[in-house]
């Protein structure tokens, strides 16, 4: 599909009252309502050209259907990358990833993926092409429209291409993995948060089997990802071992080979789905309250005798909790009451992974934000006929 074909398709559907679902790599299809209304599926993966890489300027432009890994591989030829930390990066498209607004665990370190977008082009519901930003790294010329589209789940417009600023690839990456007995967890988290050399990402993980590196036994595990120079990583290793030792964490394993792949597996775990018998919830909040929130959600799942896997982003405070059972029937029997309790405890927890049939009875997004009426008005202004991904987003937008 070309950009012209995309805009013409949208214009025709908008005119004829057809509802359009927008799809990239479908990697985050487990988010949102199970059965969104759509007459036409618009798949952006044909828009797969990397348009420019001005490597001396540290900028690039790529069509929205380019895969995240594909873009970073191309940028990597000139020693650059963009930290778009989404699951399944080989399959995820940049347009879909940005539209889903997945914030990513390295955002405290590099910034959010949204902060790397310096410009974009979108197709509006009526087929109009609209540009925002440009190809320079600093720009305050009018409203930053790209920010509005990022995280809007394709309900306002469809990305056709995105312009980014890029970063130099870190010289070296290292993963540190250690077992994390429950009793050591609070102190370990506090120690990690105050490390002088900040990890690019840090996770406390319970369960998730082989989805995440490290031994999945009765203890949880902690995974820290460091990025930087050889010297910095050596210092980070010494500091981390000392800090975790003080917290009572027994031993730390260093993994240098495949650290990037290890990080990718942890990203993927955030949406790892057990067919027909699991739901993964995500809850944002300040890092200082993450452990308490994780415990609350885990305990609720346990009360309903569901298996729980927990992934806690130490640096940003995101909590992922997967509730599951051994078979689909038992899961179906338990999940409704569990879901109700989770929402009572944490009204903002959102479903991020599950089979459509499993989440069909539930509202997937959680409590609406305070500015929901402005968001509804925005949807009405940008997509008056409700053509784009109708009902896909929070509050029925």
């Amino acid at each position, binding site marked *: 599909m070309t950009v012209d074909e995309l805009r013409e398709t949208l214009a025709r559907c908008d005119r004829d009252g057809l509802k359009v679902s927008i799809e990239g790599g479908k990697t985050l299809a487990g988010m949102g309502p199970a059965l969104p209304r759509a007459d036409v599926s618009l798949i952006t993966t044909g828009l797969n050209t990397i348009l420019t890489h*001005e*490597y*001396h*300027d*540290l*900028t690039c432009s790529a069509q929205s259907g380019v895969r995240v890994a594909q873009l970073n591989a191309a940028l990597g030829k000139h*020693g*650059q990358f963009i930290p778009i930390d989404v699951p399944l990066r080989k399959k995820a498209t940049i347009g879909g990833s940005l539209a889903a*607004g997945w*914030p990513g665990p390295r955002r405290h370190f590099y*910034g959010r993926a*949204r*902060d790397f977008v310096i410009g974009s082009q979108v197709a*509006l519901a009526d087929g*109009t092409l*609209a*540009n*925002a930003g*440009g*190809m*320079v*790294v*600093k*720009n*305050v*010329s*009018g*409203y*930053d*429209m790209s*920010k*509005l589209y*990022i*995280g*809007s789940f394709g309900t*306002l417009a469809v990305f056709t291409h995105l312009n980014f600023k890029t970063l*130099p690839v870190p010289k070296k990456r290292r993963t540190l993995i250690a077992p994390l007995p429950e009793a050591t967890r609070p102190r370990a988290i506090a120690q990690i948060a105050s490390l002088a*050399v900040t990890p690019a990402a840090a996770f406390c993980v319970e369960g998730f089997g082989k989805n995440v590196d490290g031994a999945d036994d009765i203890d949880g595990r902690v995974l820290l990802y460091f990025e930087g*120079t050889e*010297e*910095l990583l050596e*210092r980070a290793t010494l500091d981390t071992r000392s800090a975790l030792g003080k917290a009572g964490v027994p031993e730390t394993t260093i993994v240098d080979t495949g650290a990037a792949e290890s990080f990718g597996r942890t990203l993927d775990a955030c949406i790892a789905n057990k067919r027909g018998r699991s739901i993964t919830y995500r809850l*944002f*909040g*300040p*890092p*200082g309250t993450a452990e308490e929130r994780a415990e609350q959600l885990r305990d609720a799942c346990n009360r309903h005798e569901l298996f729980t896997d927990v992934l806690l982003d130490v640096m940003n*405070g995101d909590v992922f909790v997967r509730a599951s059972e051994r078979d689909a029937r038992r899961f179906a029997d338990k999940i409704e009451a569990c879901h109700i309790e989770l929402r009572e405890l944490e009204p*903002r927890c959102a479903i991020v992974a599950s089979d459509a049939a499993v989440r069909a009875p539930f509202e997937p997004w*959680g409590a*609406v*934000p*305070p*500015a929901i009426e*402005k968001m509804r*008005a*925005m949807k009405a*202004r940008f997509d008056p006929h409700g053509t784009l991904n109708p009902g896909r*987003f929070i509050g029925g*937008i």
Partner: protein
Amino acid sequence: MLRQRLIDALGADAVKTEAEDLAVYAFDAYSQGVVPAAVVLPASTREVAAAVKIAKDCGEPIIPRGAGTGLCGGAIPARGGVVFSFARMNRVLEVDVRNRRARVQPGLINLDLSKHVATAGLFYAPDPSSQKVSTIGGNIGTNAGGPHCLSYGTTVNHILELEIVDENGDVMTTSLDDIGYDLTGVLVGSEGTLAIVTSAWVRLLRQPETVRVWLAAFDDVNAASAAVTGIIGAGIIPTALEMMDHVMLPAIEAAFHAGYPTDAAAVLLIESAGFEDEMNLHESEMRRIMNANGATTWRAAKSEAERDALWAGRKGALGATGRIAPNYYIQDVVVPRTKLPQALQAVAEACGSRGIIAGNVFHAGDGNLHPLLMYDRGDSKQVAAVIEAGNEILEAAVDLGGTISGEHGIGYEKRDTLTRIFSTDDLATMSRVREVFDPKRVLNPEKIFPAGVGCAEVK
């Protein structure tokens, strides 16, 4: 009626309607607008909301104002109205050290926030040159940058949550942790045309272990530009990478005794922050790049005092222009970094052909130029020449693939030039956001949008 209603809601001390008081608020650092009908100084969100309702009831435009340091007329009352000053909403409300964030009122002075959290080992990164006087609210309005946004990012990268009052006087919050549209990201940089910010949770950063500042001097401005490209191209992103040219160096040195060479064609001021080992690597690599590009001087600040002096010169540069001419006009354009030599050439030609002295002090690492065009406001021919030259520079930046503002904003000054970078469709799309937040254009009217861009074009 307006006056009395405002006094009833906010108290007499918070409402100014005397001519001599109002006259001051007709200006910002760019130009003069219309004298407003009233100025209010609310002390709380509730008072802001009350005053918004009154102003709207009375059919008066609403103009939010920080410290008035804006350089594009963003805070001038273009049609009169009620100016909202946040001088009484200037407190740090809460510091959350564990989560490295603070909740602040819009009238808080930028630098005061970093001072406030310094003992906790934290700082607030956006640092516009006006940071000693400009406010967080104003910085949010313009998405202010500053020398250190090269690595730390501009204001929008540091805003976590906003409390706003909309044109109806309704109060709401927008947060990056909310699921839903990123209204926070759109509100930052909207120059007070969408809502009034009444508080913000901002991100704080940990103070780096080591900060180093280097100075490199060049006999040729193109060589300095090539060195900038060399640093960025080598994968080094310093925390700041600034350039000053031969016009500005003697003036700054005379004013601030910063330790700049006065005979160089250009000087680069480079700062890196992080860990000792990293700094050593950066230093040796940058020294190599400087030598390769013919730097005549390369030296590191040896003490904090020397570092501060080097920065004081850079941040005070605008004040030093008084040694060259009675007035200056500062342009704010951005080009791709590799186009700096062409952009500087365009500045020289635009000004040289009109007999205007032009100095350059700018954020080279971002490609964000700030040509300073010196003139005498009393000479109408010079004024006309400066306006022409400014427009020519702007055109040149766009032709080089750049944009018309990197950090000052569009405001009143550049609203008609927005069409140079955006099509009618682009602007009409932007206008839809305005329609949602402020359909009657009560908030800071005549700003950002070219005259005539409104709902008619959207249809």
